[in-house]
């Protein structure tokens, strides 16, 4: 029994080594592009979850794929890092070659659907760029997206029913045309670095 188990473990080890070796060989062939953000190896995401866009219409990402989709999970009562991230994404879009700008769609999904109605989200994202899409939904719908995508957000202690804060992810998720998660963009990168990463995702999928 233990021998069989050891054999399986050894086989597993060999397989892992073979896969890693293969990946390494693939990556080291030619000069690989170095992302400024964190590259993700083809993580599949659930894309068929229904949210609500600014017009109150259903929004299903799988129906709306573009060469690159940047998704930010935040909330509109966030005064500092959410608007900064929106500014960064707007500047990054402007830094793209003009003919590639429509290959990018920027989505902001609220982690606070109780306060962020579709109308509020629409007003919010339009402040930064007319092309940005603000998404809300039922609390259950938003929770489902967050669970499926591994997004953590929770209400901070303190504050009142009307005035409270949320913790939320610090990165923007970038999805390729094939619907796979390709990249996480942290806040603080230059618009040029983000644009270069986005172009890479557009061209890679």
């Amino acid at each position, binding site marked *: 029994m233990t021998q069989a188990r050891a054999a399986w473990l050894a086989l597993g080890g060999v397989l892992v080594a073979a896969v890693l070796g293969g990946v390494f060989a693939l990556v080291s062939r030619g000069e690989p592009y170095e992302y400024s953000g964190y590259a993700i190896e083809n993580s599949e995401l659930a894309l068929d979850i229904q949210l609500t866009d600014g017009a109150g219409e259903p929004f299903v990402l799988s129906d709306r794929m573009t060469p690159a989709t940047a998704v930010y999970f935040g909330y*509109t009562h966030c005064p500092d890092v959410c608007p900064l991230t929106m500014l*960064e994404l707007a500047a990054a879009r402007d830094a793209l070659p003009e003919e590639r700008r429509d290959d990018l769609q920027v989505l902001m999904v609220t982690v606070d659907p109780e306060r962020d109605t579709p109308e509020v989200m629409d007003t919010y994202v339009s402040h*930064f760029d007319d092309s940005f899409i603000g998404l809300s939904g039922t609390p259950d719908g938003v929770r489902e997206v967050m669970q499926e995508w591994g997004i953590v957000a929770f209400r901070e202690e303190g504050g009142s029913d009307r*005035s409270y804060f949320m*913790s939320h992810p610090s990165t923007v998720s970038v999805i390729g045309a094939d619907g796979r998660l390709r990249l996480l963009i942290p806040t*603080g990168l*230059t618009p040029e670095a983000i644009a270069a990463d986005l172009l890479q995702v557009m061209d890679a999928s």
Partner: protein
Amino acid sequence: MRLNRIMRAFALAIPLLAAVSLVACSDDDGDATAEPTAQPAADPTADATTEPTAVPTSEITVTDAWARATPGNPDENSAVYMLITNDGTADDRLIGAAVDDGLATTVELHETAMEDGQMRMRQVEGWDVPRDGGTLELAQRANHVMLIGLTKQLVEGDTVGLTLQFEQAGEVRVEAPVEQGMPMQMDDDGGS
């Protein structure tokens, strides 16, 4: 970026120190300057060698203040950023802030912190502003004065009047122009 800001702080502090040695108070550059009321004013003619008898005082200057423009939803929040310098001889501490004309329901001091990949925001009691040119930077993705429950939209071109409360210097007035805000730039030219 960080280095740049430190350089800016130095660049700011040097002429200020020079100015302080010439005159007691010259406030014609639009920056807020506070003279502590509890302390006797320094005699500008006093010899520099009489230093041991001088009572330590805080001298707070606020520069580069700006408030973030808001999209125009009901019940919004915003943040005010600035650079605070203490050219006095006593340590000081920012312990509160208020806005004019009931512009916000609540004003708090907040810090943004990244923990385990999560962006979190929390209220703080205050921040130190050390003496002898020490600075406190309120900046994006970091410390800020938070305006909670705005009663009107903040539009570029507006000005937010606020009163900062310091432990030593007491009240300091700041006029913060409303700006859209800027992300990081490759060639940081000192913009917000």
